[in-house]
């Protein structure tokens, strides 16, 4: 073990210390753990600025909207009353990766934050497939700056009220403003011509005169109408799950700037979508990385015992998972579960038990746990990660159990516990719990009449009898109607039986 000099002592920090700590951590993270990160940019801010950032989706640059003011008022009140403390850090998925640290943090906290955000989150952002697919890290900050400027200009030109109304409506549809599937690559016209030609030559090659003798199907008005409607639907690419995109492309009455505002909100929503899908892994990854790094720093004599104790104190607070009957229980703590799963992977790689050999033949005893984790961080999201890596050992350790809550029964039923018959069930259900497409209502644009009465029809496919809350549904629909400009209808259809459960209707305000 190489004994190096201490990086710092005591709790005071300065910029030199930050730099030295960053370099020491970088050495461990890159050379020993094989992380691959964007360039780091650490920004020191005050607690007030942190509150500011908090209020606006955690982004440093955000367009102006009253809801951010509302959030700020709330956070500020909670913070001043001491009901809530601020996060130690905030990190933005961009290139360079921007991490904010608060000036009040002690040096150990800053070290922890640098390890956690500048290397843990940073590595995850750079390598996870969802982020690679959906976000252009080098453009994020520019896009935000553009949005801020654009909205400000709109406010000046069209009035604050008009912009606010559009933004309100767009915000209401934010979780229906993401595309869940990989973007469709546009067909190059050259390819389209080639395709048409090959189809033609195929027709010619397989031409059979006999077909001509078959009687032609009757073309009555009805089918023609249907065909036309299908044609329209195809032209609009219906059904469309991304309401914001649909509205910005096809809403007949919107002005150009309004379409742009919708696009801005849609892009913001899309930017956050990978983060929502990977919260468990992202936090788990960052927590695992900071734990590993702090321990290495301690082993190599670069931080002292006092700092280590302070770190462990904070780390423990972060990864606490209260039991379900605990007063503090707020659902599964992503830091705790993520960290526990990754520690578990390390255990399986290094000292597997027979059970692990059976469950994870590919990684059990492989030794190189960092390699396994790096692959997992790159290629999974929360849902698939749980489905792949939640081990019986961890289920037992956390004593996970599955409960079903049906609205028509006075009882909750326990459906699986940590036993042989329950492991797979629990794993499956927990994975579903992290599946965003199951968590958000599945609402699509199914019909849009652009020629006749211009009515827009949305369909909610109801699963497990979970219908929409009618009060909020009506209010959101009013927003949709205002954007669309004409009558909007929402039908709730049971996904299994196809039965219509509810029917909402909203008209646009003049």
């Amino acid at each position, binding site marked *: 073990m190489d004994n190096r000099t201490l990086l710092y002592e005591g709790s005071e920090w300065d910029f030199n210390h*930050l730099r030295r700590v*960053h*370099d020491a951590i*970088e050495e461990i993270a890159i050379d020993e753990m094989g992380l691959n990160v964007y360039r*780091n940019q*650490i*920004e*020191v*801010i*005050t607690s*007030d600025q942190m*509150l*500011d950032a908090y*209020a606006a989706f955690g982004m440093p640059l955000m367009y*102006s*909207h*009253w*809801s*951010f*003011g*509302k959030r*700020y008022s*709330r956070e500020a009140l909670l913070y*001043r009353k001491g009901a809530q403390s601020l996060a130690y850090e905030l990190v933005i998925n961009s290139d*360079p990766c921007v991490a904010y640290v608060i000036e009040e943090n002690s040096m150990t906290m800053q070290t922890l934050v640098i390890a956690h955000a*500048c290397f843990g989150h940073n590595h995850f952002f750079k390598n996870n497939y969802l982020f690679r697919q959906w976000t252009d890290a080098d453009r994020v900050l520019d896009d935000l700056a553009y949005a801020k400027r654009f909205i400000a200009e709109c406010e000046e030109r069209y009035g604050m009220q008009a912009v*606010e109304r559009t933004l309100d409506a767009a915000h209401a*549809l*934010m*979780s229906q403003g993401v595309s869940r599937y990989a973007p469709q690559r546009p067909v190059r016209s050259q390819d389209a011509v080639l395709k048409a030609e090959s189809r033609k030559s195929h027709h010619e090659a397989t031409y059979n005169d006999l077909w001509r003798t078959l009687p032609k199907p009757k073309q009555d008005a009805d089918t023609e109408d249907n065909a036309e409607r299908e044609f329209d639907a195809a032209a609009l690419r219906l059904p469309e799950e991304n309401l914001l995109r649909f509205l910005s492309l096809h809403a007949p009455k919107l002005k150009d700037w309004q379409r742009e505002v919708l696009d801005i909100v849609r892009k913001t929503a899309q930017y956050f979508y990978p983060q929502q899908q990977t919260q468990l892994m992202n936090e788990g990854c960052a927590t695992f990385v900071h734990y590993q790094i702090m321990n290495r720093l301690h082993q190599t004599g670069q931080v002292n015992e006092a700092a280590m104790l302070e770190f462990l104190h904070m780390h423990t607070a972060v990864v606490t998972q209260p*039991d*379900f009957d605990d007063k503090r229980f*707020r*659902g599964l703590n992503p830091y705790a579960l993520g960290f526990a799963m990754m520690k578990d992977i390390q255990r399986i790689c290094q000292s597997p038990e027979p059970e692990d050999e059976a469950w994870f033949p590919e990684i059990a005893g492989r030794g190189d746990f960092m390699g396994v984790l790096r692959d997992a961080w790159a290629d999974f999201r929360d849902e698939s990660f749980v489905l792949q890596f939640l081990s019986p050992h961890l289920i037992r350790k*956390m*004593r*996970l*159990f*599955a*409960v079903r*809550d*049906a*609205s028509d029964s006075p*009882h*909750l039923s*326990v459906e699986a*516990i*940590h036993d042989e018959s*329950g492991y797979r069930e629990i794993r499956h259900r927990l994975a579903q*719990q992290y599946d965003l497409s199951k968590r*958000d*209502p599945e*609402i699509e644009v199914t019909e849009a009449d652009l020629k006749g009465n211009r009515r827009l029809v949305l369909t909610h496919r*109801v*699963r*497990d009898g*979970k219908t929409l*809350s*009618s009060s*909020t549904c009506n209010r959101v629909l009013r927003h949709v109607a205002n954007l669309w400009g004409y009558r909007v209808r929402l039908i709730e259809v049971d996904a299994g039986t196809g039965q219509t459960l509810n029917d909402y209707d909203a008209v646009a305000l003049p």
Partner: protein
Amino acid sequence: MQVIDRRQNPKSKSLGNRQRFLRRIKSQIRKTVKDAIENRSVSDLDSGEKVSVTANEIGEPTFGFDAAQGSRNYVIPGNHDYRRGDRIRKPSGGSGSGSGGSPDGDGEDAFVFMLSRDEFLNLFFEDLQLPNLAKRKLKSVASEKWSRAGYANDGSPQRLNKYQTMRRSLARRIALKRPRLHELNRLEAEFEAAQTPTGSDDGNQSEEAKRLARLIEETRERMRAVPFLDPVDLRYNRFEQTPKPATQAVMFCLMDASASMTESLKDLAKRFFILLHLFLNRHYRSVELVFIRHTYTAAEVDEETFFHGRETGGTVVSSALEVMLRIIRERYPVQDWNIYAAQASDGHNFDHDMPRTIELLQREILDLCQYYAYIEVGEEESSYVSALWSGYAQLESHPHFARATVLDPTEIYPVFHKLFASNRQAS
């Protein structure tokens, strides 16, 4: 890697957002503000206010599931002794175990936040404006005055600060071990004594004298090397030009203190004075208060006596006006001060005093004042028209004069609003 210090960046980045938010809930805040003036004790009107807003106004609706419908699956930690197939009675709270899947829609019934003092007052005095504000603003811009601002190393001799200079001189002399004058005197005296031939032993004497002479020479040398006052000791008073309060105002509170003014009437008057003071404070950098109470004689008193002291006697309003005029002449030259006056009374005045009162107001006071408000406080509505009310009727036409009656604390703010509404001239 780079580390950037952003702490100097402007803090209140969400100020714009907050203003947008406040604008959105203005109507509700207005109500809170109105309640505040009705219910809160006057003394803490100056602080902020907690505002609670119902969620409807500021809700951000999204498509969310109805918590009472359908079935949900949860996986939760910390099983103790449940087995598969166990049934747990639902807690009667309704929303089941409240964990996992249920999205937090708008569970918040009321949204509570703090209005800062400034925001509160802004709303409080919104669309009110001081009449004739422009009058003295322009004039007072130019006035600047010199004020002390520490010490400087150089300056003109008349600004030499002797105390600071000597302090430094003394410190330097001690540090550099400059011999004191009396030490030199002592040595010289000894030398003198050694030199006077007193008898035998000449050689020894001269030896002592030589030593002393050398010592004296050294001491002198040292005193020359370390001067008593060195240029580095010198400190001069430094002055800076500071703008005089660009706008300053004095507010005269005049109140009838006779026995007919009960505590509750005084409280009404007090509320009005407080409002006026707050309001003036927002427009002027400094507002001075002068309290004048009167019975048949008037005197300037302090605030405590003004509101709580008791006196008996008749009512002669003109006495108070005379005191006010005197004070203006003595302390508040019209060219430097914006003068506001508020008079509160139950309306009584001796009949023989009315002509004098009206004359004083019309001839002198109203022209000196930016604004003269008369508040008549009463216990209940009555058809009785008081002496002052009817007497002041002829002053109505004067642009600086306004009057109103107040019967109830809840009316104070509306009345105040009426008196200072920005479109007063128009209406």
